[in-house]
């Protein structure tokens, strides 16, 4: 659910929604969600002073009921 929720939130605020990809990584210390976006959109999802990135983290953590790490990555980086 939480990855889908994040996908929805991100797709709504970027110019290239089809390029948005989410991958979930569970590890001992909790969950990390990696968000890949089109390089054109990276500034948008981070926002001024990281404001948008912080908003995404806050909402996703509230939905998950625990602190979730959200990493924002440009899609064309080597996997």
């Amino acid at each position, binding site marked *: 659910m939480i990855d889908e929720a994040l996908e929805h939130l991100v797709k709504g*605020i970027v110019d290239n929604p089809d390029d948005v990809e989410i991958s979930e990584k569970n590890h001992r210390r909790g969950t990390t969600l990696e968000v890949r976006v089109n390089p054109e959109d990276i500034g948008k999802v981070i926002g001024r002073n990281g404001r948008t990135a912080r908003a995404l983290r*806050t909402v996703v953590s509230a939905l998950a009921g625990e602190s979730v790490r959200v990493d924002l990555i440009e899609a064309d980086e080597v996997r």
Partner: protein
Amino acid sequence: MSDENQVETADLIEPVELEGSNVKKDPKDLIKQLEEEGDIAADYLEGLLDIADLDGDIDIDVENDRAALAITSPTDSAGGLNHLVGERGQVLDSLQELTRLAVQTSLGTRSRLMLDIENFRGDKKSRLTKLANEVANEVKTKGEAIKLEPMNAFERKVIHDTIQTLGLTSESEGEEPDRCVVVLPQ
């Protein structure tokens, strides 16, 4: 100092250059645009509620030249949507920010829409309105300015608006997060 109110009335959250398109538009066009903002915002929020399997009624309105959306849970069962408000409304503010961006992405113009969940802002507003009334009375009787506690932009705006309707003036002073409203005698 006197034009600081103006800035806050123009935008609560951050100083934003007024869009020419908004200012010059005829009122009917403005309302139409705000209704469109409301619809896009509602779609965005509804999509989120669906995914999270949360029940919520979304009410769309236009208030004070802004689109206003309010989400309430139909029954108060299981704590409703209070986790989407969060401590001191932090989650609510984040969700409002993202919803504004979604509207901006879709329409290409900045949105100043207001989001409320479980009447968090509404309740806060009525408390603040009451406070403003009490302070205004005190200022009128004593003839001295009163400085209030530090408040965020939303809270200050509620105070300024109320003070104005009571025939007094107020201004903000200090820097965030310690910015306060000062209510001035006539």
